[in-house]
């Protein structure tokens, strides 16, 4: 990122080109890698059964189930959302994928938004009260929370609130075959969302808080903060307009990366709460060696990561004029 440019060429162009190259590499890997894996859908499907296939039966089954094409047509089918047919789930891959995507987006999007805004506000306020007991308490709490992995919080929350107290459902994203109006449906979805959401927020919040607080501490030493206060700018304005804006950069980075890695980030939590998102889909696909689905999920998540990293470069320029005018 901080390579020293020799010519005053547009840096963003270089970034776009190298990221396009990385995207192409990844698409190729997603095309080539699953093909060299041992075992396919046929092997997995018949491994546990008592039927023993002869070599020619196996070959004919494989040719029935395989959707092998060249890389060119693979690329073309990728763009047209024609991702093949999943024989394990008996549905088109794109349908499975698009069916799971909203749940992951809902879970991860909400968790990240809440964790980021809450972490940011508490971080700014804690830094502002530097040296007080409130700040120290908040930092201690956040450091301890940061050390508890989400697999533990998830299991503990599930055990207490779903299995023992039975306040919340232990699995799923909504009640199956439930009838009722829009309002009851929304309540039902939120009811199912609560536990995984809390788990993720508890996992993300302390990091956001510590990051904001640390970067606020650096900003608050800057001379323009003294100037702002001397001018008589109201304290809240100093805090959020003068200081916090400059402390925002690392927080935005973290937010972006979290969104970028959303599928993997929720994998464990989705499994604990049996939430029907992309993580669960990927896990089930791996269990049944369902190549097209694995390909789609892995590729999509890698492309999201690339796109987010690329767009964050642009976002930095918007937030921080120092980067915009550098060099």
């Amino acid at each position, binding site marked *: 990122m*901080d390579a020293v440019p020799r010519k005053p060429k547009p840096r963003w162009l270089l970034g776009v080109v190298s990221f396009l190259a990385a995207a192409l590499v990844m698409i190729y890997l997603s095309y080539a890698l699953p093909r060299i894996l041992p075992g396919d859908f046929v092997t997995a499907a018949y491994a546990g059964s008592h039927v023993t296939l002869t070599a020619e039966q196996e070959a004919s089954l494989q040719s029935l189930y395989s959707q092998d094409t060249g890389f060119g047509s693979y690329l073309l089918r990728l763009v047209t959302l024609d991702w093949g047919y999943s024989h394990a789930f008996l549905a088109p891959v794109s349908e499975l994928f698009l069916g799971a995507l909203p749940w992951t987006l809902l879970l991860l999007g909400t968790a990240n938004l809440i964790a980021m805004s809450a972490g940011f506000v508490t971080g700014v306020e804690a830094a502002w009260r530097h040296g007080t007991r409130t700040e120290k308490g908040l930092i201690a709490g956040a450091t301890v929370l940061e050390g508890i992995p989400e697999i533990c919080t998830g299991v503990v929350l599930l055990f207490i609130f779903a299995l023992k107290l039975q306040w919340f459902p232990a699995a799923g994203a909504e009640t199956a075959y439930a009838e009722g109006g829009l309002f009851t449906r929304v309540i039902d979805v939120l009811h199912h969302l609560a536990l995984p959401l809390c788990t993720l927020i508890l996992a993300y919040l302390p990091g956001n808080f510590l990051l904001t607080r640390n970067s606020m501490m650096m900003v608050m030493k800057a001379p323009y903060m003294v100037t702002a206060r001397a001018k008589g700018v109201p304290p809240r304005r100093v805090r959020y307009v003068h200081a916090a804006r400059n402390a925002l950069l690392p927080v935005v980075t973290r937010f972006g990366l979290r969104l970028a890695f959303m599928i993997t980030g929720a994998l464990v939590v989705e499994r604990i709460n049996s939430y029907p998102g992309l993580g669960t889909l990927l896990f089930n696909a791996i269990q049944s060696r369902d190549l097209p689905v694995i390909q789609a999920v892995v590729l999509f998540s890698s492309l999201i990561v690339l796109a987010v990293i690329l767009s964050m470069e642009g976002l930095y320029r918007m937030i921080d004029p120092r980067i915009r005018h550098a060099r």
Partner: protein
Amino acid sequence: MHVKILRDLRRNRWFLTGLSLIGFFFVLAMIGPSLAPFDPQDFSFNPLSPPAFKHLLGVNDGGQDIFSELLYSLRNTVLFGLLSGSAALVIGVLIGAFSGWLGGFPDAVFMRLADILLAIPAIMILIIVAAVFRPSPSVLALILAFMTWPTISKAIRAQTLGLKESLHVKAAVQMGGGNWHIIRRHLLPEMFPLYLIGFAAKTRMAMFMEASLAFLGLFDPGRKSLGMMISYALKYYYLDIWWNWLLPPILCLSFVIMAITFVAISLENVLDPRLKEGSLKETVMEKTL
């Protein structure tokens, strides 16, 4: 400079707590097998019997002693983390120092490679490899290390670029010091405490991943792991086993990861004035799986 850092660290309560917890768990992991009263693979006890003097934490559904199981699991998780963390540290520091020092073509190649690796979610690769090839845990730890070195080497590279301009390094070049000599004698000792942040972050991530993969059931079922214990205990939630079977692995895992977090965070705070950019990046990346 290093003396001051040591003094700051010795006064830091978080660092001391973390370090003593780490020491405790490390010793427990090392001598665990000799402490364990039974072989964790021994199926001969009365299944699901409650804790007693003979079985401190009771017996699980398969008739195995839970306390022995816990000690072996802790050992497996800690060793997995240490192996992966140290491998990532060695790769990351060497590549970071070399590409920062040499610059030019090798620098461009390594940093592009780092960018590509950063964009590939490590847990995906691990899950696919674990599910399909069923490799041994140490192979998985090394694969994880290969996925996670880029953040370390980016921080080290940024520091190297700064050090390159400092007078004593320039003097060493003037005296005719070769690349390897300067990296080994001047750059690496100068950046010493900085590696520890990366090492702690990667070890922590590796333990977390090991627990997650084991929880998802992707390891050999005969290999004990904290994550696997949690997932088995959760199946018997309707029995009154939560405090002797479900809670111990959860507490162990939390305390181990917490201890490393304390050390990583306090190191970062103490070292921060020296390495603004690098440390921020490390904090940002460390929890993204």
